[in-house]
């Protein structure tokens, strides 16, 4: 049954309201069931105390009130007690209870001798019945009271009319009080119902909200479970990945306390990951590194001190930049054996964490260090080899040119020797013998002797011949002296560069002069191979540079251009050398040839050690030039349009004329 219908209530709220009313009625039914028993006991006790027996003279009997309290009271209470306990909450139950309750009012009034105070039971009962919050329920006791008066008026007029006689309108007063209370209680019931309605409405809203919240919570819980599952899987994967890391990976607090460690710590450090949890990360550092850090800590700020010895140096070295800059430290294996390592620590800001954590990797770089040492050694050897090769190249150029000149010298000397031999010294000697033979009659001999007559002519011819030979010989000797002077110049130039360059000292250098010297070293060879060299040299202020290395580079580039020309098959061999100012503090030296050119695939390999395209080449020249250029902080590059189209080598030098003292050598 619906408690009461309102258009404002939702079906759910109406159901809640009905449920609440049912529960209210049920609990009130049980309350009245207990009250019925109590009233039955009370009525019986009252009857026993007030009117236990009725007397007739000397004899007495149990008073009728006792039997009435026992049997009528039982009858009155039985059904409401049964219904209240068996069918609580049903309309019939509370209606029977209402009827029984007013009956009990009447009974108790009787049993207590009609005491006026007992009449209060009527009003108390009405108040109790209002617990049901049904104003209709109040009609029943009111009706019963009316019936009581009606029945008594018929069967027992004395009890009614006696009152009427005394006060004809007192019953109206009594009735008015009852009606007054009923009206008040009916209003209270209605208010109670309205409150229940509001409560039901609010409960409906609350439960709807709760349902939404529960749905949301359930949904979020499912999402959370899914996320946790994913997170667990992700964590597992991450853990696997971390454990698969060759380099140990650590997470630490700001106090360098290790929070986690990958499995590889056991391989590298000899510690099991679990053994490191909670330990200080400085445990993994060698004593020397720790001592160094400890010393530095005395100057550190509070945060660095709090950060621990391991983290502090990173904060200082990178200006509190823990973005993962690697640092090489000596780490310590379990037992204290140090080993070189590359330690990288970076700060990780975790959401919802007040303090950041630090992650770090420790890479065992022992092999790398050994390889680096080996590489340094090898590199030094290579540099030395390159230097030697460069020097050899220069020496080769020098020797080549000196050889060419020596060939001319040899030819000149041979010519001189042949001229000397062809000078007719034997004729002169024979003439001298003839003169000596005829010294005594030399006059007659000249005038008379047939042979003597030819002697003047012979002398004249011999003189002419020797004069002629002398001129040739002078020319040859002149050439010979020139060639010897050239050799001297080449050698002295080489010696001069060797002396200055051996020390590796930078000095002010006039780049144009240096280029001319480099060309000069190759002049003889160029001339012999008919290579035309054109120089376009800008007049730049001297710059400080290692003259020997630069000469080595230029000689190599010019020699390389010469060979390119020679092997190109072209009839014209042409080399153009240009010196010009580059961008900013740079100077550019370009060596261009119209030689064999460079295939595109070799452009990037041409400076590699051992790379050469000449059958008799060694691959040292350009490599040594590149090494030397690197040492000069210069850049060397090559461009070529392809095979047969020549090539241009560009040497990009640092050029700082303002810093160069103007000191002419």
């Amino acid at each position, binding site marked *: 049954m619906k408690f009461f219908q309102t258009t404002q209530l939702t079906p*759910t709220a109406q*159901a*809640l309201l*009905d*449920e609440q009313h*049912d529960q209210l009625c*049920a609990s009130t039914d049980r309350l009245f069931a207990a009250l019925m028993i109590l009233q039955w006991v009370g009525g019986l006790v009252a009857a026993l105390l*007030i*009117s*236990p*027996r*009725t*007397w*007739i*003279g*000397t*004899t*007495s009997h149990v008073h*009728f*009130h006792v039997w*009435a309290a026992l*049997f*009528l009271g039982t*009858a*009155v209470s*039985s*059904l409401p007690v*049964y*219904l209240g306990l068996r*069918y609580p*909450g*049903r309309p*019939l139950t509370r209606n*029977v209870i209402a*009827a*029984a309750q007013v*009956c009990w009012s*009447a*009974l108790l009034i*009787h049993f207590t*001798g*009609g005491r*006026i105070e007992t009449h209060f039971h009527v009003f108390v009962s009405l108040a109790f019945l209002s617990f049901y919050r049904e104003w209709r329920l109040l009609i029943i006791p009111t009706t019963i009271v009316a019936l009581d008066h009606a*029945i*008594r008026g018929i*069967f*027992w007029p*004395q*009890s009614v*009319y*006696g*009152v009427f*006689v*005394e*006060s004809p309108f*007192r019953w109206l007063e009594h009735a008015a009080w009852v009606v007054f209370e009923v009206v008040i209680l009916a209003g209270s019931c209605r208010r109670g119902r309205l409150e229940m309605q509001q409560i039901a409405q609010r409960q*409906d809203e609350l*439960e*709807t909200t709760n*349902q939404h919240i529960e749905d949301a919570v359930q949904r979020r819980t499912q999402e959370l479970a899914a996320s946790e599952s994913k997170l667990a899987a992700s964590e597992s994967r991450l853990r696997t990945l971390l454990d698969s890391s060759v380099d140990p990976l650590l997470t630490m607090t700001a106090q360098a306390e290790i929070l986690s460690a990958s499995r590889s710590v056991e391989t590298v450090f000899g510690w099991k990951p679990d053994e490191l949890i909670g330990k200080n990360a400085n445990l993994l550092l060698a004593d020397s590194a720790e001592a160094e850090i400890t010393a530095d800590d005395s100057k550190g700020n509070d945060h660095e001190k709090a950060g621990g010895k391991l983290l502090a140096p990173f904060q200082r070295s990178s200006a509190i930049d823990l973005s993962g800059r690697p640092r090489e430290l000596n780490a310590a294996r379990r037992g204290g054996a140090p080993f070189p390592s590359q330690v990288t620590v970076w700060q990780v800001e975790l959401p919802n964490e007040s303090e950041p954590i630090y992650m770090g990797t420790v890479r065992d770089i022992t092999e790398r260090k050994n390889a680096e040492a080996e590489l340094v050694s090898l590199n030094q050897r290579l540099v030395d080899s390159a230097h030697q090769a460069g020097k050899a190249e220069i020496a080769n150029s020098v020797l080549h040119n000196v050889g060419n000149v020596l060939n001319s010298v040899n030819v000149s000397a041979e010519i001189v020797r042949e001229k000397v031999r062809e000078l007719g010294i034997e004729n002169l000697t024979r003439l001298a013998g003839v003169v000596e033979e005829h010294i005594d009659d030399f006059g007659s001999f000249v005038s008379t002797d047939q042979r003597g007559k030819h002697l003047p002519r012979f002398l004249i011819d011999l003189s002419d011949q020797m004069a002629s030979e002398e001129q040739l010989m002078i020319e040859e000797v002149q050439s010979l002296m020139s060639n010897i002077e050239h050799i001297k110049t080449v050698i002295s130039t080489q010696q001069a560069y060797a002396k200055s360059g051996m020390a590796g000292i930078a000095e002010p250098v006039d780049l144009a002069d240096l280029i001319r010297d480099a060309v000069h070293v190759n002049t003889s060879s160029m001339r012999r191979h008919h290579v035309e060299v054109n120089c376009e040299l800008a007049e730049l202020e001297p710059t400080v540079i290692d003259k020997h290395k630069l000469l080595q580079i230029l000689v190599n580039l010019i020699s390389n251009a010469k060979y390119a020309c020679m092997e190109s098959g072209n009839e014209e061999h042409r080399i153009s050398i240009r010196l010009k100012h580059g961008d900013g503090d740079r100077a550019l030296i370009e060596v261009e040839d119209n030689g064999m050119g460079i295939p595109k695939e070799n452009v990037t390999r041409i400076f590699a050690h051992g790379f050469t395209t000449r059958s008799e080449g060694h691959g040292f020249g350009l490599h040594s030039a590149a090494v030397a250029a690197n040492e000069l902080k210069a850049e060397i590059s090559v461009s070529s349009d392809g095979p047969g189209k020549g090539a241009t080598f560009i040497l990009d030098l640092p050029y700082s004329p303002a810093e160069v003292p103007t000191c002419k050598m």
Partner: protein
Amino acid sequence: MQVSRMNPPGGAALRQTQKRLWIALALWGMAVLAGTLALMSYSGTPGPSGIAQEHWPTDSGLTLAAEGISIVMFAHPKCPCTRSSIEELSRLFAHVDPGSASLQIVFRVPPGRNLDWAKSGLWRKAQEIPGARIVFDFDGAETRRFGAKTSGYLCAYDAAGQLRFRGGITPARNHEGASAGGYALSSLLTEDIGQEMVSTNVFGCPLFSDDEDCEEPHEQQ
């Protein structure tokens, strides 16, 4: 949203249950009605009214007041119904001028009973009424003399010894409250309603056993 409701039995079971309940209700109603009617009948059935003498008996040991109304109530010491009469008297005399009325309560002690037996709760209640004179009538002479047969019987004489009222002052057995007798006695004491005698029903226990003669007068104790 699920709302749990009490699920009454359905179908035939429900009808059967309802039928039983209605039968039980009818039986219960009849039982209660019958019991109530019986109770009403018992409470509303008066005892035999006394036939008091029209004039104050001269041989009575009781005292007729020179002024005002002399009231004599006869009571059985153990009658529970008379408690209501005592209460009514007490309530009445609380508002009456002591000079306008005198009250004598005669406890008729049945034969074979002594004074201790007679000094019951009713006697203690009667003693609480201001100015009331308590008299124990062992042989029932005074009771017979005034024609009292039922406990709670009361008769009132004026100063001239003329009977002005007789009967009970409760509306029912063992029932306080407004009654015709109470109203008449109150009017007699306060308003003097005239010379007509008023007689009302008496509700109480019989003062004499069936084997006793309630008509024969006895000596006053």
